[in-house]
């Protein structure tokens, strides 16, 4: 299509070793993330999303860029996303319909209504859902990547942690453990200015998250989290180093959480023009589009095609599941144990 009109020889060199198709694919994931969240917001307002809704508005770039840098496919790299890494999960192969079902607690959702939002896994595809307790996924990912190392598999793990999450004991124990074991683990520390309502100054006494890496003896770098390609490149480098045996790689991404902690949060604690500035001057999608277009890597019509496809995809996914039933009550019982001793009784309903 568009590429036919301009021979590739005339195009400026493509960035970061990516092909045009890949650049467009990255764009697709960014758009997919944003559109899917917008759809979730609409469903939330209709009370179809059951629990809270957590947005990653403004952070789609770092999620997508970092996940895109991993080796994907069956039994390759594994990442562990947080509530604001919907984009990372989509990149690894989670399908929008799964996310929709999960948020709406549908019987056919990935956890059959047991868990909420992005708390689900597909270890073969390479994502391991978090639990709510912040920090806990760092030790778990240390164990996963320790296994890669013990078995000599050329795989890496990637785990996200928020600026707030770095205050937890498990962050410390897990990162230190992984550092000592030289696990092939990339830690992405998301500086997004807020932990619920708490600013960094009340969360830690260093300026940047990358300062924390110094206490663990791991390689560290900082990247502009709203520059998708920069995040991609930095993560790619970190992942390849980890894969090559260089041990834990710590990457701080600087970004900004533009919505409240969850949809109910009115953000009254946010300085008035801060949101505006980030929306207008530093939106990761806007910046990426500008890059793509200015460098003539793709043309605008291709982008609007993607937008349109995404819209259709999300519409279809929504239509496919919005009226699906919730799980049957009794399905709440099995599966606590792999080897239960005997069929569980319904004690008090069995009198």
């Amino acid at each position, binding site marked *: 299509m568009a590429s036919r009109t301009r021979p590739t020889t005339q195009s400026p060199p493509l960035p970061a070793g990516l092909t045009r198709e890949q650049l467009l694919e990255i764009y697709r994931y960014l758009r997919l993330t944003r559109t899917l969240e917008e759809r979730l917001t609409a469903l939330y307002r209709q009370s179809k999303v059951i629990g809270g809704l957590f947005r990653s508005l403004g952070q789609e770039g770092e999620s997508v860029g970092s996940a895109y840098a991993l080796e994907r496919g069956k039994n390759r790299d594994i990442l562990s996303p947080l509530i604001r890494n919907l984009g990372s999960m989509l990149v690894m192969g989670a399908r929008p319909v799964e996310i929709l079902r999960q948020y709406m607690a549908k019987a056919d959702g990935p956890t059959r209504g047991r868990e909420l939002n992005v708390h689900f896994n597909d270890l073969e595809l390479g994502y391991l859902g978090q639990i709510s307790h912040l920090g806990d996924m760092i030790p778990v990912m240390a164990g996963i990547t320790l296994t890669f190392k013990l078995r000599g598999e050329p795989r890496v793990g990637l785990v996200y942690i928020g600026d707030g999450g770095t205050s*937890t004991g498990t962050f410390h124990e897990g990162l230190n453990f992984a550092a000592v074991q030289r696990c092939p683990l990339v830690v992405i520390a998301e500086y997004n200015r807020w932990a619920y309502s708490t600013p960094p100054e*009340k969360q830690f006494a260093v300026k940047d998250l990358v300062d924390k890496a110094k206490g663990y003896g791991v390689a560290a770098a900082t990247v502009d989290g709203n520059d998708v390609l920069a995040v991609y490149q930095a993560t790619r480098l970190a992942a390849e180093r980890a894969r090559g045996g260089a041990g834990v790689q710590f990457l701080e991404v600087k970004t900004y959480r533009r919505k409240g902690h969850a949809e109910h949060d009115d953000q009254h604690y946010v300085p008035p023009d801060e949101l505006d500035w980030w929306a207008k001057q530093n939106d990761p999608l806007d910046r990426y589009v500008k890059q793509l277009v200015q460098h003539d890597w793709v043309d605008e019509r291709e982008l609007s095609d993607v937008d349109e496809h995404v819209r259709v995809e999300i519409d279809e996914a929504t239509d496919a599941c919005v009226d699906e039933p919730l799980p049957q009550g009794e399905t709440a019982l099995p599966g606590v144990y792999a080897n239960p001793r005997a069929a569980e009784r319904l004690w*008090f309903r069995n009198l």
Partner: protein
Amino acid sequence: MPEVTYLEALRQGLWEEMERDDRVFILGEDVGLYGGAFKVTEGFSQRFGAQRVIDTPISEAAIVGAAAGAAHMGMRPVAEMQFIDFVSCAYDMLTNYVATARYRAGLATPLVVRGPCGGYVRGGPFHSQNPEAAFFHTPGLKIVYPATARDAKGLIKASIRDDDPVLYLEHKWLYRRIKEQLPEGEEIVTPIGEARLARDGTDLSIVTYGATVWKSLEAAEQLEKEDGVAAEVLDLRTLLPMDDAAIMRTVKKTNKVLLVHEDTRTGGVAGEIAARINEQAFEWLDAPIKRVTAHDVPLPYAPTLEDFVLPQTEDIVKAARWLAAY
């Protein structure tokens, strides 16, 4: 008399203690300007200043440990867990350090750890927990769990004044659902360690606490209307130390007991109560002690699943009917 919610009653209690005693201060995540995830401390920072309403890092063990240190120095800290589920991260600190400090070393450690707990709100497995059983096994701690607005206020005040560490469990399903008229000006302090007779009855006793007090009262109404069965409802209010006397009183009166809690069954508080009744009132029992509890699973998210797993009014009715007919 103004009508106040459970949450507002708790807020009042906290506020009054902050006004009364400048050793009282609050620490926790987002408790300051934001006013806490559920707005329990809304306006506190403005009134009492950032020195007495301290926003902390996301560090539950440090929050509880720092509260203990301050308590040793004569302060009266009130530590908020954003959700009580996260108190599990301070499990070591609370059970090993805080609870033993007086016994080991004569250290005064008057502190309160409080936070929203409980289900029926579609919070999923990590925003719905009832942690009482994990701490119930800890000599040195006290555990209170108000079911009414009056007790939400009275127990927070008593907890702050108590010289022992208190785990104060507040049920988020009750926050805005329960309203009560509370006299202005009257000082409401609910004594720790005393159960409350929530409903008089003669045919059987329902012993419970927290949100299931309300489910039990509903069940009792229905039993009265539909079966002519008079169920007594005892709201424990304090779980540790437990009010054995009140429990035995009702057992000896009705001779049949139904234990109800929202928490999962195995290892839940009902087991201990059953053992105590057995030890102290065995000969008064005309029927086996029955339990209505959650099923032994992590609490799932979907409304259908959550409703199935948690004890409901109809479950209580059914068990009570069985007992009444025994």
